[in-house]
């Protein structure tokens, strides 16, 4: 059996964060929010383009579950940086659905289509009407969970 070593490491980062100067956590997060807000418009456009690619895949019905998964993960990646929770929940459900589909070596364009339509709806609402959209996301999860039962 090979030897296991335990090593005490002093990271440079630990010394840097404690140096005098810098800013309070409150100011740092406010600045980060301002910087992020400047990116929000481009992010929204990118999300729209990615959802458009998913819509095209649903229309052609030739893409693999892997391809759908990759595009859905892109939505989750971008929306996740901007704390768009509803859009994240919906894209997470689509990721989970396609992951289960590829594991079972199946394809279900109806369920995928419902998810993609929901993504477009949520994207167009900008995370407003949270209660209404929550019931949409609950419906998506009901579709995804049904796959385990079938």
């Amino acid at each position, binding site marked *: 059996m*090979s*030897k*296991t*070593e*335990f*090593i*005490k*490491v002093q*990271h*440079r*980062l*630990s010394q*840097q*964060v*404690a*140096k*005098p*100067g*810098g*800013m*309070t*956590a*409150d100011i*740092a*997060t*406010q*600045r*980060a*929010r*301002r*910087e*992020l807000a*400047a*990116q929000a418009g*481009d*992010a929204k456009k*990118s999300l729209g383009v990615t959802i458009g690619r998913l819509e095209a895949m649903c229309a052609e019905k030739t893409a693999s579950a892997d391809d759908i*998964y990759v595009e*859905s*993960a*892109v939505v*989750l*990646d*971008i*929306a*996740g*940086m*901007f*704390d*768009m*929770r509803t859009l*994240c929940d919906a*894209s*997470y459900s689509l*990721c*989970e659905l396609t*992951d289960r589909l590829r*594991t079972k070596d199946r394809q279900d364009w109806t369920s995928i289509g419902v998810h993609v339509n929901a993504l477009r709806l949520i994207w167009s609402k900008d995370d407003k009407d949270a209660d209404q959209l929550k019931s949409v996301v609950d419906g998506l999860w009901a579709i995804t969970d049904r796959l385990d039962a079938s």
Partner: protein
Amino acid sequence: MALDPNIRINLDRSVVLLVDDNPQALEALSAMVRGFGVRKQFKCGSGAEAMHYVKNQELDLIITDAQMPDMDGYDFVRWLRRDAPPELIFTPVIMLTGHAPRSMVEKSRDSGANFILTRPFTPEILLQRIFWVARDERQMVKSANYVGPDRRFKNLGPPLGVKGRRKDDLSTHVGAAVDPNMDQNEVDMLMKPARVQI
């Protein structure tokens, strides 16, 4: 457990590497980190490109996406912990994940990242994780199957500078002495049984 908003954090001199294959997400991450006061950051879109930076730059923190084509974040961190230049193998890593496919759960656990942060997250959460990584006192483990922070659970109380949820939640971090050392008589008096009159 939220980070105390009044706690000071200085990232002026920290060099951060950001890795994400999605340009929009990478820009957003870069904007957040810039807001935290980081002046020097490198951005790249793949694990292979990140390897190049690790070999050629001094880095204090790496924030990487988990899922990327070709070399994903898990494989990149595995490489970092095993085959990177010796002075950089334990560079702190925060891994960002979106959806975790079932097939990736073990790979994620064994990658050796310091923290895994699930999307969606806010700037507060990312800053909190950076703070935790900076104050992380876990030892690093180097074995045949795993290189990374010690994953064994030990209750150390809340991280230093963070209030616990219960009134008796105290961090086990002792910190520097604030009073002069006691002399031997004072120590003896603390332990000496005394007769009391009831």
